[in-house]
């Protein structure tokens, strides 16, 4: 059993296709593992019956000799993707018992490829957070614990349920979404791979919107190869999303081969930030050495506006969120307050009761920066900074093909350690947020353990729509790091 759930997506795909195991057996093993792992709170909704039915259908297609690319492979879906007929919460009370009457394009692509849905994973409410602690369904626990410690750590966020599920072997792989680091940061602090594709690569149709110019779906997996496999099925050109880019989707797995000889890897000096753990810096240097040893050329580059990225993000993202979240009004779906005086009172009370503290804070920030008299000082200025941040990358890419940076300022922290000061939590995304502002692809790869046994990752950033090269560099990093660690399964005791 434990052998089945610890397989990579690629191994499971090959085993299922070769009929060495059935999807039913594989899916059954995950259903059992999920039941045992409920203390982690990784799933908001488990869909065991549906999963087993999907597995049986997959086994039939395999028997008929018509398997899809992900035939019979059990996946976890972040509960921000609308799934037809299955409750979708965005980890918010405001959605109540919302059951979407439609399917998101990304998940539809997965089911069309034959994948099996195990359930919907926990997240920060509306994907706003870096620790999965803002969820209305309670925090997720990181499967990892420090050596000789029973302290509960956060799994990162916002895709914390997905990162925990991948690290604890509660799915073969998971979907995430990334607006400021929400795929890469949780993957990094759980010792797994997280890929945010270029803006426009995956359709946003049917994904609960947070900040539409930054949101992007992507894979969270055990290996770089698995990320390539999953991205190939997630990505598509979608007429339902006008920002989905008209560019054929390659088979990313085929682009993994070829090595990195001659690849120019940029090291942005501004990513050496104060307050980052010494281990983070050391690992970063080691990563550069690993790539150099495989034939890459290391070049120092400068991204001068890096320090302005987080404050820019905290204007742009809340502004877009305040507008996107205006639709939750208690009228057409979701939570509606009782005993209201009039329609305005209905809106205000429903929203006040339905949104959690962090979401309310961001709606207020966004409303303020867009309001008359402040728009130019805040929002218009932030949009100009965004141009400068993107320009930094354009200039750096004249000298290099990919960038190597740390993934997070620190390893996973304790539950409750950063919930008093919102700014302290925001700083978690210092290395990831620039990538969203510039629309670029980024991937985090597990690269080592801290002295007390917690995973640390490294990030590679690519050129727009150059996921092939990015994945190849990530594979080189993964091969050199040879990270084979998994958390002890303390939750089954």
């Amino acid at each position, binding site marked *: 059993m434990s052998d089945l759930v610890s397989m990579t997506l690629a191994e499971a795909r090959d085993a299922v296709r070769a009929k060495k195991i059935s999807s039913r057996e594989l899916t059954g093993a995950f259903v059992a593992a999920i039941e045992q792992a409920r203390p982690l709170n990784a799933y908001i909704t488990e869909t065991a019956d549906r999963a087993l039915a999907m597995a049986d259908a997959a086994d039939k297609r395999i028997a008929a000799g018509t398997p899809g690319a992900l035939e019979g492979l059990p996946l976890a879906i972040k509960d921000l993707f609308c799934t037809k007929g299955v409750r979708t919460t965005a980890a918010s009370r405001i959605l109540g018992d*919302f*059951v979407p*009457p*439609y399917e998101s394009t990304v998940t539809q692509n997965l089911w069309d490829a034959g994948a099996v849905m195990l359930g919907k994973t926990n997240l920060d409410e509306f994907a706003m957070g870096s620790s999965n602690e803002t969820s209305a369904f309670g925090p997720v626990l990181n499967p990892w614990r420090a050596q000789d410690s029973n302290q509960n750590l956060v799994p990162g966020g916002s895709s914390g349920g997905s990162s925990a599920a991948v690290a604890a072997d509660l799915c073969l792989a998971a979907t995430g979404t990334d607006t400021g680091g929400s795929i890469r940061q949780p993957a990094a602090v759980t010792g797994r791979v997280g890929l945010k594709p270029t*803006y426009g690569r995956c359709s946003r149709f049917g994904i609960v919107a947070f900040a539409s*110019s930054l949101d992007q779906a992507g894979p969270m997996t055990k290996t770089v190869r698995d990320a390539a496999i999953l991205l190939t099925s997630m990505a598509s050109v979608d007429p339902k999303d*006008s*920002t989905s*880019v*008209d560019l054929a989707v390659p088979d990313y797995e085929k682009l993994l081969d070829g090595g990195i000889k001659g690849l120019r890897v940029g090291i942005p000096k501004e990513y050496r930030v104060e307050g980052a753990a010494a281990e983070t810096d050391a690992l970063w240097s080691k990563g550069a050495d690993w790539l150099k040893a495989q034939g890459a050329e290391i070049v120092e580059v400068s991204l001068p*506006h890096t*320090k*302005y990225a987080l*404050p*820019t993000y*905290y*204007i742009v993202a809340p502004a877009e969120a*305040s507008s996107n979240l*205006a639709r939750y*009004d208690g*009228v*057409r*779906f979701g*939570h*509606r307050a009782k005993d*209201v*005086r*009039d*329609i305005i*009172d*209905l809106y*205000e*009370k429903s*929203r*006040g*009761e339905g*949104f959690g503290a962090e979401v*309310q*804070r961001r*709606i*207020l*920030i966004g*409303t*303020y920066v867009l*309001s008359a008299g402040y728009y130019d000082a805040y929002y218009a*200025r*932030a*949009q*100009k*900074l*965004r*141009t*400068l941040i*993107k320009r930094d990358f354009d200039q750096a890419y004249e000298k290099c093909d990919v960038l190597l940076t740390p993934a997070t300022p620190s390893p996973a922290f304790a539950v409750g350690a950063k919930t008093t*000061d*919102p*700014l302290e939590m925001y700083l978690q995304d210092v290395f990831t947020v620039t990538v969203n502002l*510039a*629309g670029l692809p980024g991937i985090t790869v597990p690269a080592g353990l801290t002295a007390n046994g917690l995973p640390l990752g490294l990030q590679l950033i690519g050129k*727009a729509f150059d996921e092939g090269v990015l994945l190849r560099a990530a594979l080189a990093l993964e091969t050199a790091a040879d990270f084979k660690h998994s958390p002890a399964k303390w939750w089954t005791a």
Partner: protein
Amino acid sequence: MSVDKDTVRRIARLARLSVPESRLEPMAGELNGIFQWVEMLGEVNVEGVPAMTSVVAQKLKWRADIVTDGGQADALLANAPEGADHFFVVPKVVE
């Protein structure tokens, strides 16, 4: 500039968000902390820099102005907190 209790009340109203009286003061404090940090953007010279409108170089797509879906009243109403005869029911809005 600094956000006070009345400003929070005003933006909460604009956002159609009820914030209890007891939360106004603490919220003003939190927002001030965030806005003070954001002030650092003021030190950048943005003279002549265009505001970003699209992060990837792609023309906004055009499509034919045709009906692609419809006749889904039951599905649309399925999640309504209160509905009747294919209408959403809300408190009285006109006197």
